[in-house]
């Protein structure tokens, strides 16, 4: 059964359980900076914006990599990094239109969500339901894109204000 991850900013309380859960399942420790999902937090307006790989159709990260270290599963859209090839240059991080990739604080390799290969660990931790792992329908796919647009608009506003 094909599933998709709905990421709703309006339900996000900014707690960072998702980032912590991610760092735990991937690296056996707790560090929000090592989460493949990240919360961009604006404390004064109490906003949390979730940022992560969207398995998007355009996937400019693949092309941006000068060494061809990134590959994409055509069925699931999941991006995989070949650690042997990756030079930690950061080109993929820069190229992502959804600000969904960042570099590992220690090793510099890109951190890209792989949906835990079909059972995202973060979802169980999101009690308010801002992250939902649901059966894919056309309607929900459209909904996912709408939620993403709202997050990207908020991201832009935040960055504009800070700059």
């Amino acid at each position, binding site marked *: 059964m094909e599933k998709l991850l709905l990421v709703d900013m309006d339900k996000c*309380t*900014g*707690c*960072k*359980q998702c980032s*912590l*859960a991610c*760092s*735990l399942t991937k*690296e*056996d*420790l*707790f*560090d*929000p*900076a*090592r989460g493949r999902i990240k919360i961009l*937090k*604006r*404390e*004064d*307006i*109490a*906003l949390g914006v979730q940022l992560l790989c969207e398995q998007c159709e355009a996937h400019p990260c693949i092309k941006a990599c000068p060494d061809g270290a990134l590959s994409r599963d055509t069925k699931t859209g999941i991006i995989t990094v070949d650690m042997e090839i990756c030079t930690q240059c950061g080109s993929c991080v820069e190229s992502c239109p959804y600000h969904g990739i960042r570099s590992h*604080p220690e090793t510099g390799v890109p951190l890209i969500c792989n949906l835990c290969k079909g059972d995202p660990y973060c979802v*169980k*931790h999101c*009690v*308010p339901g801002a992250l939902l792992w649901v059966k894919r329908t056309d309607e929900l796919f459209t909904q996912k894109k709408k939620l993403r647009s709202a997050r990207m608009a908020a991201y832009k506003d935040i960055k504009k204000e*800070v700059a």
Partner: protein
Amino acid sequence: MYGHQGKILHVDIGKRKSWVEELPEEWRKLYVGSRGINARILWDYCKDPEITWDDPRNIIIFAPGAVTGTTAPASGRTSVTTVGCTTGLYLKSNTGGHWGAELKYAGYDHLVVHGVAEEPVYIHIQDDLVEVLDAKKLWGKDIIKTDKLLKKWHGDDSRGLYIGPAGENLVRAASIQCSVYHAAGRGGGAAVMGKKKLKAISVKGTHPIQVKDPAKFAKIAEEMRENLRADSGAQGLHQFGTSASVAGVNELHAFPGKNWQTGYTENVYPLTGQALVSEGYLKRRVACFGCTIACHRYSTIDKGPNAGIASGGPEYETFGALGNGPGIINTEGVLLANEMCNRLGLDTITAGGVAQWAIESYLRGVLTKKDTNGLDLGWGKLPELLKVIEALALRKGKLGDLLGDGLKIATKKIGHDSYKWAVMNAKGLEQSNVETRSAKAYSLAFAVNPRGNDHLMTETFAEFGTSPEAVAVIEKITGSKKWASPHFTEYRAEIVRWHEDCYEITEALGFCVFTSTAAFGVNPENMARLYAAATGIELTEEEMMRTGRRVCTLEKAFNVTRGATRAHDNLPWRLMNEGAASGPLKGAMNSQKELDGMLDRYYELHEWDKETSWPKRSTLEKLGLKDVADYLGKLKKLPKE
């Protein structure tokens, strides 16, 4: 190190130097973390009773919990400990927000601030970089502007803790704000910072936190998370915030109004969390770090003359202290007062407490317009209330100075029996908005609270028996379900004793006390297991609870050095001498006789001396506090055995 980061950061802001001390292994076993270890540090540095709140030797300690920064649900809280300025006694205040987790990621379990700066300073921490920097540009600025500047200088992802103008002005009602809208509000810790000329602490950190057994830890954290997900109390807190309970409390005629002269308000709906939602004020449900409940609110006014007003809250306590208390039965009115307190850095509970006392004093003719900055005070007068709040924060005019010192000092200045309607006990902290006349464990807990009478050193909500989980807690303590009713005086000492320990370990680990004493997803048994998985330190449930008891006794001992006796463990005059105004509990009162009965049993359970309330040498030694006993002996403050 596992669980803890293993480091205590000391900063002397007078000498502008810092040093790091290893976290003693023994303390992790005896005091666990946060509030517990803070109590030990405060004892070690400030036990000498000559060290008053404003003495340069007073220290202020900030500490996230032993499991803060992990997926343990709602474990992101921070204890702040110092010699309190409102009571002159032991003060622990506790805040949510995201600052504490950041301190831990910077590599520190505790931050101890020593000394006094000559000019305003702030502390900047970025992992190993620790600086005491000039705060001239921040001094005088409100909380919102201070946060903005700190983020401009140190990054949008830095986290701040700060005082506003109220703290700078040494106002007792001042609050330490954290992550903008969260607060270590009670007891005047912000005035201690103000006295030290410490405006803010900005933190950013990159050190991960590791636990001893990640798989086991994740499993126990999941169990707690799922308990809370299923808990009706936690669900209500998420949906409608702390003020979800206002209507229910009002139905019990236990929602204090007009300075505790009423308990029931006809149309209370505007003061509820439900109204924040239905009237469109609620913009977002907000979580502290790692919290799966998210009871905090972010509310805005979008229309009308007050459009643009936005802030965190209001909480239950604020709807009480600045709404029902002064008679402002109006959502927008409370939003305005709340926003002003958050911005100027005031604790809404104390701000409301002193404002209500001022209103009643004026209506009784004890204060006149000469004392009130010309204000014609009265119940339900919003513009006047806002002027009182402003005067309080800025110590404006005669009124600002009078209220700025808190009711303990103000009632002495004014005389005329004005202590009779100052709702505080002998320790001198303005009471939180809980009706103790009809809840007997609460009344005992409020009386013995080392920092003054409020619900934030222990909470005995379970005595109401409002859910099967609450009843189960009471049954566990007393052996019978039948004691799950707040009007009994029997077994209240047992209930308070158990909750003191549970509350303490909850805070030592960094959990929000809602998880264990308002909702029931976290408990001593699963906390002991979690602590072992986090640190490798195996404590049984009983041993874990014993660390709580050790800390409560140490906190008590600290107050004994400052002259605390049994007489300090009392209740406000009004609640001891005037009956509840209406409802099924009409006429209900706290009385000295009733309290004495509960106190005797409480001291007995603690193995403290009944006459003086002081801990005995044998008790202290049994708890591993021989050095404390020796010091109290030197002060001649050990009871006869």
